[in-house]
C-alpha cells in the first residue's frame, strides 16, 4: 500500500526518461528546457530561411543537427533539380567540422522524386538524418506529404530536417518549425568575420510553447552549439504581439 505513490511516480517518470533519450539537445540549457530536452529525433523539423542570403545558414544548421543526431551513421542530403548553380562544397563541410565522407548527396530529377526518395530513406532508417533542401514554394509538399514523412520518421526513428528558403508557411505536420537567419558573428581581431552564428525563432512546437528566440554559435572544436560570447543575445523569452501573430500563421 505504501509504495503505491512511489511506483506511480516511477511509472509517470519512465516515459519522460525514454522521451529524453529520443531528443537531441541543442546544448543551451534555457532552450533545451523550453523544448523539453531538445528536438525529437524521430520527427520532422522545419527550418525556414527569412532572407535570400540565408540558404547556406539553414542548410548548415540542418547538417550540424543531422550529424549530431547520431555520431556514426551517414546523413542523406536530398536535392531536386538537374542543373544547379549552387553546389555543396566538400572543403566547406570539413571547415564546419563535419566529415564529408559521412554525407551522401542525392541529386534527384524533381520534387516528386525528392519526396519519394525521402519517404524511402526515412522508412529504411539506415541514415542518421534525412535533410531535404527545398527552396521556393514546393507545391507538392503539402500536408499529406509531410504527414507521410512524419509517420515514417516515427516508425524508423530517423530525423527528418527540412531546409527551406523563400517558402510560404503552409500547414504541415512538423514537430517544430523555426524561422532562421544568420546573425552577426563575434568578430575576430582585425575585424575579421568569426564563426557561424544562427538566429532562431521557434514559430511552432507541437504540444509545447512557441516563441523561443535564441542565437547559437557553432563551436567546431567542441562540436557543440553555445550561446554567442558577445554581440548576440541568448535565449530570450517570448514577447509581444508580433510573436503571437507569427505563431497563428504557422
Amino acid at each position, binding site marked *: 500500500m505504501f509504495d503505491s505513490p512511489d511506483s506511480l511516480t516511477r511509472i509517470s517518470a519512465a516515459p519522460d526518461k525514454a522521451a529524453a533519450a529520443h531528443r537531441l539537445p541543442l546544448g543551451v540549457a534555457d532552450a533545451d528546457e523550453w523544448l523539453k530536452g531538445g528536438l525529437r529525433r524521430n520527427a520532422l523539423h522545419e527550418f525556414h530561411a527569412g532572407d535570400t542570403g540565408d540558404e*547556406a545558414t539553414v542548410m548548415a544548421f540542418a547538417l550540424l543537427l543531422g550529424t549530431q543526431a547520431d555520431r556514426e551513421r551517414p546523413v542523406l542530403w536530398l536535392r531536386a533539380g538537374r542543373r544547379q548553380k549552387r553546389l555543396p562544397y566538400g572543403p566547406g563541410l570539413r571547415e564546419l567540422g563535419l566529415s564529408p565522407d559521412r554525407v551522401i548527396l542525392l541529386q534527384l530529377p524533381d520534387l516528386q522524386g525528392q519526396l519519394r526518395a525521402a519517404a524511402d530513406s526515412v522508412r529504411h532508417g539506415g541514415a542518421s538524418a534525412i535533410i531535404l533542401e527545398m527552396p521556393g514554394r514546393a507545391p507538392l509538399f503539402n500536408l499529406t506529404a509531410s504527414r507521410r514523412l512524419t509517420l515514417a520518421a516515427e516508425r524508423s526513428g530517423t530525423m527528418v530536417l527540412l531546409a527551406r528558403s523563400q517558402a510560404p508557411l503552409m500547414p504541415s505536420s512538423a514537430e517544430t518549425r523555426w524561422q532562421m537567419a544568420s546573425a552577426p*558573428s563575434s568578430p575576430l581581431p582585425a575585424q575579421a568575420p568569426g564563426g557561424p552564428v544562427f538566429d532562431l525563432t521557434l514559430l511552432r512546437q507541437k504540444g509545447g510553447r512557441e516563441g523561443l528566440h535564441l542565437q547559437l554559435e557553432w563551436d567546431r572544436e567542441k562540436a557543440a552549439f553555445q550561446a554567442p560570447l558577445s554581440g548576440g543575445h541568448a535565449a530570450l523569452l517570448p514577447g509581444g504581439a508580433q510573436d503571437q501573430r507569427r505563431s497563428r500563421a504557422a
Partner: protein
Amino acid sequence: MLPFFPAERRISAGLAPPDTSFALIEKQRGALRIMALSPAACRLGLAPGMMLADARAQVPELLGFPHEEEADRAVLTRLALACEIYTPLVAAAQPYALLLDCTGCFDAVGMDEAQLGEDLTRRLVRHGFQARTAWAATPDAALACAVYGQDNPHDLPVEALELGAEVHQALRRSGLMVLGDLACRPSAPLAARFGTALPMRLAALLEEQDRRLTPLRSVPPVRVERRFPEPLALVDTLLKVIADLAGEAEALLAERGEGGRRFEVLLFRTDGHVAQLAVDSALPLRDPAAIADLFGERIASLADPLDPGFGYDVIRLAVSHCEALEQEQSGFTEDKRVKDTLPLLNRLAVRFGADSIRLFHPRNAHLPEYAASFMPVGAPGSGPVPGTAASGRAEAAMDTWPEPECGEPPLRPLFLFDPPQRVQVMAQVPDGPPRRFQWRGKSYRISFYEGPERIAYPWWKHPEGSGPTRDYYRVEDEQGHRFWLFRHGLYERESDHPHWYIHGQFA
C-alpha cells in the same frame, strides 16, 4: 526446324486466314517470287522459289502476302528465349530453326531426349508452329537432319552439303546420292574434284567436326532456377521464390568468393512468354534479403505491371555480372553501417539511376573549384561508400580533406557557385577590400572582412596557359550573411578594371 514458320507466324498473329493456301512473296528483280508457303499451299504441290505468276497458273485462288523477314526473326528470337527453359545455349539458325545445346541439361530438366523433343514440339504447336526435331552430336548435323527429315546423317541427300547446284548435280551423276556414299571414300580425291569445302562440310554433317554454338545471350556465371509442376500466378509468392533463389545463389556466390553486381530474373510463362527483370547493385552483393528487396522495388516501379497470365512455370535467377567480394568479417570489427545504408542506396540507384547518388571526393588541387568533386557511387575510381569497411584503407591512398585550423572560423564556404557570379563592388581603393556590393538586385554593406587570400593561376602545372590571379575576401554584412568574394586580376598589373565575383556562401 520450323518448316512453315513465316506462314504460321502470320496465322497466329491473325494476319492471315488459317487452312487456306497463301504465299509470302517478295519482289526480286522485278518479279514476285514466293519466299514461303502456307501448309495448305504446300500440299497443293507448290514450292518456295517459284514465281507468283507460275503458282497462280496452277492454283488460281492462291493469296499473296508480303514477306516480313524482320518480324519473323523477332518472333524467332522470342521463341529462342523461351527455349532457355531447357538450356542456356540456344541459338536461332537459318532458315527458320532453333539450335539447342542440351549437353548435360537433361538431369536439370528432368527429361530425356525424346521427352524433351516432345515437350518442345508440344509447346511450339500450342503457339501454332509445326516443328520437326532432330538430335545429333553437332549442330550442323542436327539442323540438316531436321530439314531433310532423316534420323541418321548418313542418309542425308547430297544437297545437305549446300555446295551449290553444280556440285550436287556432279555428285549425283557419279552415283553418290547420300552422304553415306561419300563417307567411306578418301577425302583427298573428293577435295581435288569438288573443292576443299566438301570434306570440311562433310565432317561437320557426319558429326566428326564440332562447331561452337553462339548462344543468343551469354551464359551467366551463376544461375539458379525453380520449376513448378503447377504454374505460379501470384506476385507475392513470386517474390518469396526470388528470395529463395537468392538464398541459393548466395551459397554459389560465396563459393566463388564473389558478389553480384547485376541480377536478372527470367519469368517463363506457361504460354511461352518470357519476362525479364534486371537490377544493378552499387557494390557486389549476395545478401538474399537485399536482392529480394531490390526485385520487389523493381517490380513495384514497373511502368506496366507484371502480367502472370496463366502463371509462370519456371523462374530463373541469373547473376550476369560478378565481382570479388571479400568474406565479411564478423565480431568486434564488424561495421554496422555497411548493412545500414547499402540496401537503401541500392534501391535508390535502381529507381533514380546510379549517378544520382553522389559522394564528396577530395582532390589535391590549387584552385578552389577543383579541390572537391562528386563521384557517383560505384563509378570506377570513386571513393568507397561512406562507412564501408573499405573506406578506411582506401583513404590513405587517396587525397584527403585538409584539416581545419584550430581556432579559426570556417575558411571555405558551404556552397560554391558554379560558375562564380558577377557582383558590383564598391571599394575605397581599387586594390583594397570591398565595402559594399550588389548581388541579385540587393545591396549588402560589409561590416567585417578578412583578406585577401591570394590564389594564383597554377602556372607550375599549366605553363602555357594563364589566368588572372584571384584575391579572395571572406566578408560579413551587417545582417550577418557571410560570403566569399574575389577580385579577378591584380589591379594595374593584370587588369585596369578587375571584375568582382561571388564564389561562395558561408553558413
